[in-house]
């Protein structure tokens, strides 16, 4: 179990969190490579299907990062994401997917530190959970 390297999909909104991840890069902050980033324009675009698809395709965790409430480039996309997120977690529980495998958080364009901390934390938590049981989403 020691060598388990979780595979995590990170859906990042273009305006805040993707820029926050870039800022971490500009500041040369080293973090684990487990999170693979997929850029979307807004967290509002994140269809629950994307999360399911990620788990089906072998992800052990999904990280959704968007603009802080009130700062959404599209005014309220992140609120919609938040609403959907709660539903999603309930649904995932029915598939037997632990709630810590999906996380929604806010990272602004200047929060390089927070981005790195969130990635580290996510990787740590999913490591503890171990690999997603394939049967869960069959």
């Amino acid at each position, binding site marked *: 179990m020691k060598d388990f390297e979780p595979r995590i999909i990170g859906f990042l909104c273009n305006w805040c969190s993707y820029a926050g991840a870039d800022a971490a890069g500009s500041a040369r902050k080293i973090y684990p490579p487990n999170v693979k980033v997929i850029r979307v324009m807004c967290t509002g675009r994140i*269809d629950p299907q994307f999360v399911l698809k990620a788990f089906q395709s072998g992800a052990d965790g999904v990280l959704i990062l968007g603009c802080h409430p009130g700062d959404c480039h599209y005014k309220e996309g992140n609120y919609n994401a938040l609403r959907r997120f709660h539903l999603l977690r309930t649904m995932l529980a029915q598939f037997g997917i632990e709630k810590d495998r999906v996380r929604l958080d806010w990272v602004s364009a200047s929060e390089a530190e927070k981005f790195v901390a969130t990635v580290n934390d996510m990787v740590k938590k999913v490591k503890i959970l171990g690999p997603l049981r394939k049967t869960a989403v069959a």
Partner: protein
Amino acid sequence: MRSRIGVYICSCGTNISENLDIDQLVRFSSGLENVAYVKTHALLCSEDGKSHISDDIIKEKPDRVVIVACTPKEHEKTFRNVLQKAGINPYLFQMVNVREQVAWVTADKQTATEKAKAYIRAAVRRVALHEPLEKREIDCNPDVLVIGAGPAGMEAALTLAKAGRKVFLVEKNSFIGGRVARYEEVFPKLECASCMLEPKMDEMLHHENIELLTNSEVREVLGFLGNFVARIQKKAGFVDREKCLGCGACYEQCPVTVRNEFDYNLSDRKAIYVPYTGALPNVPVIDTKNCLRFGDSGSSTYREAYELGLITLEEYEMFRNQDCSKCRDACSFDAINYEDTDEIVERNIGGIVVATGFDLFDPSVLSQFGYGSIPEVYTSLEFERILAQTGPTGGKLLMANQKEPRSVAIIHCVGSRDRNNKEYCSAVCCLYALKYAHMIEKHAPEVKVYDIYADWCVPGKDNQEFLDSVAGWKNLHFIHTKLPMNIAIQQADSTIALSCVDLAGKKQEFSADMVVLCPAMIPAKDASALSDILLISRGKDGFFTEGHTKLAPVSTNIEGIFIAGCAQGPKDIQSSVAQASAAAGQLLSLLVPGRKLELDVITAEIDEKACAECRICIGLCPYKAIVLDREKKVAVVNTVLCKGCGTCVAACPSGSAKSRHFTTQQIFAEIEEVLK
């Protein structure tokens, strides 16, 4: 479907090559499906790099391109332009960010290289699914809507009008000048406020490019930078602006007397009135609430009685429709029209300036100040009227009993700089408190003034000098307390007893006949409604949020909408006017007549055949970009309004809404490939 994908890998000097094995990436990419060739370059974004790509494209004829380099936020546009020039649709392209999100953040080279491979694999799969998208342009409307006709709004309107732009200036009151119209003098030069304002007001009223809509409110705004449509409600005023000469014969005859809210109820007015002598435009309006003819509220008791079934409809109508026409009869110019009705007008504009000003924090919620319960406790704005020549006392310092007070206490920071109320400093109170002291010295030199303050906030080049010059007056006593909020104010027989603790910890007790509070500035009441209409955001204090505190202080989150003056936060007149000029300048550079505006390409679209008419998307779109086509029974995206957030796409239960360039298929492909 086979594609012919060209992959270009950039070393970015050594920024990328230092931590990624470029040779491995070349070998890896060459082996991917649909990849026709892989090229490397030391610096793709340089002039040499860009011509390298375009020459190569012309030679190799790829149909899609993947660029492995830095963040798309830096150079996606650059490379799209290169592709466009080389004859490839700029959306048949995908960038892989291996600099910011791989090379710079990964501990060892092999791990980084593996991560980069996953991203390249995803991009190659994704780009094969891209569809060509066409750039769209529309004409830009250079005209501007300005909301609020205070000093900021007037400045913005005039600046724009002088540059030849048509300006629609909407003001909810019947007069222009905003709060400043209520002031007698302004700090720090103690200039006469009306002398300062009048030339501007005059110029504005006569400017051919400005359409002033008083008694009006913005009800709806649709669109985006360059193409907004505003729906404005013009309330009936019942007096024709063209015919009225402003002689005042009408209000002299009006039998109704009510309190004048312009003077904060310290004076009276008629049901047909101008709020103060000298108000501009000098055209009276009828207040239908109190006018006998309309009697909206004058007869509310009757309406209530009718609703309760105590009187009949006929009786109610009889009381309501009193046939008073005294004002119309008095008017020699036939200017009064009782048939006037509210009207909704539409104006097309390219940009908007919001200059809606401020209101005052209501001190009656803090019982220690006695406001509302002790008659001689006033707010600063009420006191401005007492000092004004056009005000209830004709500019004399008088109490309600028409006697001059022996002493006046001025209290700073009422509700400001207080964790439980407004945390911020209201920026102008110290200076107007000094102005009051100075004006009292001038009008009534025998009156004693107590100034209860916590700190002096007098930044700027003339203000310290102003403080020093006023502070010398022998009747002015400063009391330095830690927290003006901890003051106690009580009615005592014929005077008011005050007590507070000074900085030395000593209890100070004194009395004053009159107390003036300097309450926190808060956003204008309509700010919240306006933020819903314009979709511009507000901060935790309710003021409109600037695009960037330092670098975009008059922008908002919506392109083409700017803020100026106290709508953005507490400030003095000079800063408000400066912001207004800035907002006007921004609009002048954005909205150039004849220039085309580029529309977002990445928008949503709805498949007519699949749409189930559930309307979920309509309610969710933050830009009101989706409407229902009633005939076809489908939701339709207005791609001019759509910003492409994708919220509707994620929410559509029938899967008929689609995000251009961020299709579910494309994102699924990415997910599969990065996880392989």
